[in-house]
């Protein structure tokens, strides 16, 4: 059952006061402007055993995503589409507040929001991933592991997922005597669009893009907006506070503008991969 709880990361009163002082001067504790994201570093093909992988650093938040491709039955109601599943876990290495165990509701939400971005943007042309219509399709698992958590896991996980999918080499499976056989060849992933999520946190009347862990510990509410080249494809408000309609519209604008920068960076990976 979903339950309200103590903030896991305790920010000292003095530090909170410093944050408020900085915000009232238009700055953040780490010196960023409200709409400035932390440095983003994306490395791909870091795990050779995976069909595709990416390691993303967004400030001190670090996420690694791996893609594994197999074959299996299609989802019910989606018989003529390949199956794509994004899951996530926050490893106990990520922060002193994480304990090993089954994913809690925050991690379930993280995985579902990232999955929604990829799914609703129709990033991968799943109709091209069918072997026997209605019976056997490609199944693509994207598993994300948060190695170090310093806020904004949503965007870091989303970028890692997209980068890993973009640079994945899809094995070419063939049907031989009604059995699936790996031809040994690979092909690029059938990519049609590129979803980019941008997350903002509201602290009082201030809306900050790409919140750090410290900022998240002080935030009232959070919003994640995913865009493609053409428009919006997914949104999620989170945490216990609210937003005014105006704040949401501004966040949507910021997601469009900031999303372009990140998309350009991800496009670069695609080109390098040939």
């Amino acid at each position, binding site marked *: 059952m979903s339950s*309200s*709880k103590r903030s896991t990361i305790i920010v000292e009163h003095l530090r909170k006061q410093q944050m408020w002082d900085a915000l009232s001067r238009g700055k953040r504790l780490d010196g960023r402007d409200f709409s400035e994201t932390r440095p983003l570093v994306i490395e791909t093909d870091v795990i050779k055993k995976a069909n595709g992988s990416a390691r993303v650093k967004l400030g001190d938040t670090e996420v690694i995503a791996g893609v594994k491709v197999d074959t299996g039955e299609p989802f019910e109601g989606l018989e003529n589409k390949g199956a794509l599943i994004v899951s996530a876990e926050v490893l106990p290495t990520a922060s002193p507040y994480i304990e090993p165990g089954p994913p809690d509701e925050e991690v*379930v939400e993280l995985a*579902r929001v990232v999955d929604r971005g990829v799914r609703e*943007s129709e990033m991968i042309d799943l109709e091209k991933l069918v072997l026997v219509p209605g019976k056997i399709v490609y199944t693509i698992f994207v598993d994300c592991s948060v190695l170090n958590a310093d806020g904004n896991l949503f965007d870091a996980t989303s970028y890692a997922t997209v980068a890993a999918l973009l640079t994945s080499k899809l094995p070419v499976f063939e049907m031989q005597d009604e059995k699936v056989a790996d031809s040994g060849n690979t092909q690029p992933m059938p990519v049609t669009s590129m979803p980019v999520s941008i997350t903002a946190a509201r602290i009082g009347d201030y809306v900050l893009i790409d919140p750090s862990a410290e900022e998240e510990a002080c935030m009232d509410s959070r919003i994640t907006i995913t865009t493609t080249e053409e428009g919006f494809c997914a949104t*999620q408000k989170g945490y216990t506070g609210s937003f*005014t309609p105006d704040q949401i519209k501004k966040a949507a604008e910021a997601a469009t503008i900031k999303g372009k920068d990140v998309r350009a960076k991800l496009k670069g990976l695609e080109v390098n991969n040939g």
Partner: protein
Amino acid sequence: MTQIRNLIDENGKRIDGRGADELRTVKITVGAVKNADGSAFIEFGKNKILAAVYGPREVHPKHMALPDRCVLRCRYHMVPFSTDTRKNPAPSRREIEISKVMRESLEPALMLQDYPRAAIDVFVEVLQSDGGSRCAGITAASVALADAGISMHDLVASCAAGKVDNRIVLDINDEEDKEGQADMPVAYMPRLEQVTLLQLDGRLAPEQFDECLEKAIGGCKMVYEIQKQALMQRYFGNETELREEVQ
């Protein structure tokens, strides 16, 4: 995207006969569960959803208690016969996420600091599902919380808008959700003008985002009036009944 059939006909009518700005029939009955401290039964289109509130009451396990405010716990659950194919009664990832966003959409309305060290439990049971069950559930839960006499800043009203046949329409039903292009569930506190739930599944052009948000907020305001009427009916009855009581 391949469209199997048109979801909006040449007269602008949707498959269930509604216009673009029309809500499905909404009926709220307050006090539907006798044992609960507060409850509401909502029929929102084909949705049939029961919300029951227990509390403020002692927290079990005790270590979950918060020293300065009340713990709000929320469970959204679909019964196995509520869907087309039987739903496994164990909580799915979808239900875990909805329980979370539902709790977070109700929490801004509640004065939880009034009940330190206590818990309020909100149970939302979907008995028959249609499109927009989370919105209907939030709407019912909010009425149930008011019925339980919990201190609140405002009621939370919830309604979705979405894109069907390239048009932005209010209150998406099941078929429109499955075959349409986008679904944006919103919860809103009309008196405080605050959005407490916002999700989006599906593609919207840049200019459609604001339009969809405004339309959903408009729907929330309609739902808000129905919520208030239902509570008035429960506590003050209609005028004739009142007169009879006086006599």
